[in-house]
């Protein structure tokens, strides 16, 4: 029996292994379950029936569910998927498990921008968003320009990125060191990444941007997987490598910057989600769909935990993503070691 399926739609066809399909489906179910849980949780508990009827527009909980909880759950799902995609892109591009947007200095640059907004400007949320995006994009642009030299090599990009990241991180901790304690605390709070108090007004534009980038990725994914097999294979099959890499970097940077502008840097999802997806599917490359789904589940689960852990104090979700994602990654690695040891 065939172990993979081919789905055709017009000129595009997608080939997916059965295990990948099963894992993706399971992740989707997990995301749905967590979403219902997220809509039920809050200052007061609503039963799943109440949630469903509130979504349809009936009952007492309509405002709470649709205006307060839904944006947060949706943001966690979409942002998580975006971060997972960004991570998958960078890990494919650099062919390195450590390749993630944080490594090319994007997070550190955003933080520098935000620190500028907080310490110099006054730190309104609009200033924070603009400064952090500008900081992140400037850094990414500089890293990209510095790593171009008769074509873009993945490893060169990563080394230049690490260098830029190290400079900015040092600069950031120095600014925090010199600042007053309460300013330093506020800045550190932003750097943790948080979905607290998010609403629809803030989400419309980011959702449109992320959807557009995801569509762009659909058209690029074939070339991306070809180039993962090696530059020669990719060139032989007609992939224009430099254009492909530029577009991929743009998509990855765009996803991360969009999320950072709204929620602050939510670390570790980009690094962990592709690895988790890869370990679950057992696939050789870093596939986009499992990475996106893993990211969505990871961020939503983390956000729920952040709300519950020390309730009524809501922790920044970034604190929890690092802890949960890290523990889960360790668990997967340990299980794999154990299995290999026996087999």
């Amino acid at each position, binding site marked *: 029996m065939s172990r993979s399926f081919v789905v055709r739609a017009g000129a595009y066809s997608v080939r997916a292994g059965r295990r990948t399909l099963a894992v993706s489906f399971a992740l989707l179910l997990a995301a749905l379950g967590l979403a219902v849980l997220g809509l039920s949780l809050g200052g007061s508990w609503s039963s799943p029936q109440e949630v469903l009827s509130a979504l349809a527009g009936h009952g007492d909980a309509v405002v709470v569910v649709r205006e307060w909880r839904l944006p947060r759950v949706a943001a966690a799902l979409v942002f998580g998927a975006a971060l997972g995609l960004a991570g998958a892109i960078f890990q494919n591009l650099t062919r390195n498990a450590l390749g993630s947007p944080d490594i090319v200095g994007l997070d550190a640059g955003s933080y520098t921008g935000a620190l500028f907004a907080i310490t110099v400007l006054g730190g309104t949320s609009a200033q924070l968003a603009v400064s952090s995006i500008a900081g992140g994009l400037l850094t990414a642009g500089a890293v990209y320009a510095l790593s171009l030299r008769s074509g873009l090599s993945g490893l*060169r990009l990563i080394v230049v990125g690490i260098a830029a990241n190290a400079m900015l991180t040092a600069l950031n901790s120095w600014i925090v060191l010199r600042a007053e304690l309460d300013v330093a605390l506020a800045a550190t709070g932003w750097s943790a990444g948080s979905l607290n108090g998010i609403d629809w007004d803030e989400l419309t534009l980011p959702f449109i941007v992320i959807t557009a980038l995801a569509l762009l990725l659909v058209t690029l994914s074939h070339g991306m997987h070809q180039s993962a097999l090696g530059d020669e294979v990719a060139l032989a099959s007609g992939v224009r490598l430099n254009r492909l890499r530029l577009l991929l970097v743009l998509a990855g940077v765009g996803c991360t910057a969009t999320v950072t502008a709204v929620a602050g840097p939510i670390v570790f999802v980009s690094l962990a989600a592709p690895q988790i997806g890869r370990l679950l599917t057992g696939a050789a490359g870093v596939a986009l769909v499992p990475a996106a789904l893993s990211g969505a589940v990871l961020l939503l689960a983390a956000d729920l935990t952040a709300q519950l852990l020390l309730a009524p104090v809501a922790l920044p979700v*970034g604190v929890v993503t690092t*802890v949960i994602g890290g523990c889960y990654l360790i668990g997967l690695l340990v299980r794999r070691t154990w299995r290999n*040891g026996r087999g």
Partner: protein
Amino acid sequence: MLVASVLLLFVVVVASVCVGAQAIAPAEVWRALTGAAGGDEYLIVREVRLPRTVLGVCVGAALGTAGTLVQTLTRNPLAEPGILGVSAGAGFAINLGGLLGLAGGQAAQLALAFLGAVLAAVLVYALGSASPLQLVLTGVALSAVLSGISLGLRLMLPDVFDRYRFWSIGSLAGHEQVPLALPAATIAVALVCAAAVTRPLNALVLGDEVAQALGGHVLRTRLSVLVLVTLLAGAATAAAGPIAFLGLMVPHLARRSAGGSIPWLMAYTMVLGPVLLLASDIGARVLLPTGEVPVAVVTAFVGAPVLIWAVRRRGAVSP
């Protein structure tokens, strides 16, 4: 080349004792060292500059060597000692100590940091010893877990945060009065062992099978390298705070002179590490008129452009 590097180290050491807020002529330094001079110069040289220089040499050599060992072992040119959870473990221990009210004095902080670094690294090896890639991933994952919990602690406890932010950016300043004999001795012993482990490591670079065929003990070599990295990076981080990037940077520079031989690479690393750190520390003292810059800021701002230039000029070198 190696002779030139050693000469450079000598120049930097002399400069490190002479240069500062108050410049002291080499002749004065000599008289202060031999005990002939009295007064301010004597105090500055004997009590501040000399310990600081010795600390710089130890920490620089330790971080550089740890970086070379990790990069060689994991065959990943991006690996650095911090990736094995050493800095995250040290930071976590300091935060936890702050929560429990233990991290009062500098000596307590030093002990906590070292303990945290060693425990984190041991945990990483225990979980990820199957393959080099797995080791790196486990280290990254555990670092994330520890730094996430630390960040949560800091956000809830402002006074822990206040103390941590001063530790969290590595500096050689203000560490002169700390009991440094133990970390320095640990580093010295570990450096000697690192020199001894270069030959089996040289075989291991060719692959596990080849190393075995050449009569090397693959597991024993790997384990001793990991123990050495922990001791070196742990002691250095405990003594001076996290100085990221030095462990990543020095092997990349040394590799260009060493030409593929691990023993030569190690020799260059042990000389270039202190040169880079001391030069940065001198810069840290005189760069800004307003006061000292933490040395970790300078290593990053000096080292990163050099690394970028090197990568652009010759392409990334794989270990």
